């Protein structure tokens, strides 16, 4: 009997069976195929593996590799109060390992079963976490986090800055180099030297013991390369606890603020005039009487001994306002502006690192402004910018910008560091010798550091108050180059409203110069600067003489 002749059910029965068998066979093939695929290729990647592992933020180290900032894995402990049987027992046990825990407060929070989540302690070390873990308490949760740590506390705190809870740079170097640090990898090596940095900060801290001051800043700069070996702002700030810093500590006075720095501008005025050929070293000036610029009288606070005929060297050594204004007049407004622009005092400095505050020039650069700027009033700049302006005196007339990244490890060719000639070599040497005289016979005697041939200039500038310049409040500063016999470093110390507790005058001669001298005496050995003492000079010269005779 043919299929066609069969009843309907009989005709479709075998076909259904074959279809079902085929489908089952296909399913079997798929299962076997997938099993073989899994056997050969593995189970495949879970979604957890798809999440990129977070990159560990790079460390920041000083020029010798000392750690300034690092990222550490820390632990945080939390709890679910609903899973805690006895809140007081848990709190007491945890407090035995973490003594800073407030037992009563934690007991109260752990007993609140309406809550699902309670932080117990954040940012504990792996050892502390293990100790808590070993207590075997119920309901605890451990979460790993990364925290930025500054193991040297407040050292270079202002410069380093800090990060937010997500590890993103918020201030200072952490912000300025955020892209580089976020990529992880090798530590970011700075030009700072932790030892010199400590010396500078320590002397600023001690300065507060000697002077009742509002703030201070200091910079140590390698004149040849612009490498900043130390940069500090006082009051110090601990980047581990940025929220706890005082209002006074928030400002980075070395970089982020501008000041009228007073008479430390005078050597720049003299250098500009000498280089322009409008002043000679033998030329004399009469500074016995105040002079008027428009309606404004300009006088010397401490009249010179023989004021009828003083040279530029005398004007610098004894800080004569009258004399330097006379020189500025000879130089002219245009020459003055051009020179100050060349030494980086009229525009924001451009370099890799936390940005310097933009200078504040006078609204109108007329004859009066030119006169006051010649002795450091009317043009406010950041201490960092000003320190860089003294590099030509140490470099034979060449200006160098500040550098914060260690050249060797950051692939910076030292020989290609831009040096801009801003004055003749002879001019630089002449002004340098004048600066040395400031310390040997002038207002900078307190900056003397035996053996280190300090050359520098004092600066005392009255601060602007609601009624103009306030004679009761001032900024005192000392800008130095040392050693004068073979210049290597520039040092700048600036103190805000420093009042000697001894009752001495509140001028730079008694305040900033003293601190600068102490900084140089302590930092020079760390900077590998060999002192040249008078006895050594005599011995060396007599030796050379005897050698010359025998030859």
């Amino acid at each position: 009997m043919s299929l066609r002749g069969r009843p309907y059910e009989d005709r479709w029965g075998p076909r259904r069976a074959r279809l079902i068998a085929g489908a089952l066979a296909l399913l079997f093939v798929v299962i076997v195929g997938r099993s073989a695929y899994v056997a050969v290729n593995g189970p495949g990647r879970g979604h957890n593996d798809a999440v990129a592992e977070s990159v560990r933020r790079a460390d920041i180290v000083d020029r010798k590799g000392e750690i300034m900032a690092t990222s550490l894995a820390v632990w945080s402990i939390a709890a679910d109060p609903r899973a805690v049987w006895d809140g007081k027992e848990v709190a007491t046990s945890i407090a035995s390992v973490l003594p800073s825990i407030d037992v009563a407060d934690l007991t109260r929070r752990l007993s609140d079963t309406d809550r699902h989540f309670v932080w117990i302690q954040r940012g504990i070390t792996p050892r502390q976490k293990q100790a808590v873990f070993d207590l075997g308490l119920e309901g605890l949760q451990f979460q790993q986090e990364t925290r930025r740590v500054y193991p040297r506390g407040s050292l270079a705190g202002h410069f380093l800055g800090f990060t937010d809870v997500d590890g993103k740079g918020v201030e200072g170097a952490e912000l300025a180099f955020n892209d580089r640090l976020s990529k992880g990898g090798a530590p970011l090596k700075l030009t700072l030297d932790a030892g010199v940095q400590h010396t500078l900060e320590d002397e600023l801290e001690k300065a507060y013991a000697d002077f009742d001051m509002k703030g201070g800043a200091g910079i140590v700069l390698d004149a040849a390369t612009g490498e900043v070996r130390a940069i500090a702002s006082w009051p110090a700030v601990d980047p581990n606890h940025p929220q706890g810093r005082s209002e006074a500590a928030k400002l980075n006075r070395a970089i982020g603020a501008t000041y009228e720095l007073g008479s430390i501008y005078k050597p720049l005025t003299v250098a500009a005039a000498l280089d322009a050929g409008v002043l000679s070293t033998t030329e004399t000036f009469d500074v016995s009487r105040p002079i008027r610029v428009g309606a404004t009288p300009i006088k010397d606070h401490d009249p010179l001994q023989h004021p009828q005929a003083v040279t530029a060297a005398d004007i610098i050594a004894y800080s004569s306002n009258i004399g330097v204004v006379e020189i500025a007049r000879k130089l002219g407004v245009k020459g003055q502006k051009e020179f100050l622009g060349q030494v980086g005092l009229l525009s924001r400095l451009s370099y890799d690192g936390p940005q310097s505050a933009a200078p504040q020039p006078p609204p109108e650069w007329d004859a009066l402004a030119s006169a006051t700027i010649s002795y450091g009033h009317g043009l406010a700049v950041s201490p960092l910018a000003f320190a860089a302006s003294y590099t030509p005196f140490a470099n034979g007339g060449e200006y160098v910008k500040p550098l914060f990244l260690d050249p060797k490890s950051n692939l910076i060719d030292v020989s290609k560091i831009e040096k801009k000639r801003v004055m003749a070599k002879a001019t630089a040497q002449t002004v340098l010798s004048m600066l040395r005289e400031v310390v040997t016979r002038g207002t900078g005697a307190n900056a003397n550091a035996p053996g280190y041939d300090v050359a520098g200039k004092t600066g005392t500038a009255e601060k602007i108050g609601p009624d103009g310049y306030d004679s009761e409040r001032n900024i005192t500063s000392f800008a130095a180059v040392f050693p004068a016999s073979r210049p290597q470093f520039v040092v700048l110390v600036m103190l805000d409203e420093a009042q000697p507790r001894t009752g001495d005058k509140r001028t730079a001669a008694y305040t900033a110069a003293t601190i600068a001298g102490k900084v140089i005496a302590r930092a020079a050995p760390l900077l590998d600067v060999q002192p040249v003492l008078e006895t050594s000079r005599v011995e060396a010269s007599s030796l050379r003489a005897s050698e010359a005779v025998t030859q």
Partner: protein
Amino acid sequence: MKRLLIVGGLIVAVLAVSVYRAKLGAEETETKIEGLQAEARKVTEEISVLKAEEAYLTRPERIGPIAHDKLNMQPAQPEQFTAPEALSRRLGEEQVRLPDTVEAPAEDKAKAGGKPKG
């Protein structure tokens, strides 16, 4: 034909087992590598912690007083330095000499070189 099919099937089975075992071995190695990597991460973290602790413990404000109190050390003073020329001259003036070799007495010689008595 039937034998060929059996042999072929056996070869395929052996190859399949080999591939499976190779895969298992690779997975084991991968697991081992992951374990080692985790250990390396842990050690790296420990090193970071130790370095941070070292930096904390070697802070100049901590080391300075310890060096002063325990070792009586002071910061270097300029007077402690001298020019190399002056140093070489001083060494010449001092006429540094090594002590002369002292001739040992005869009795000591005998003690040193002779046979033990008794």
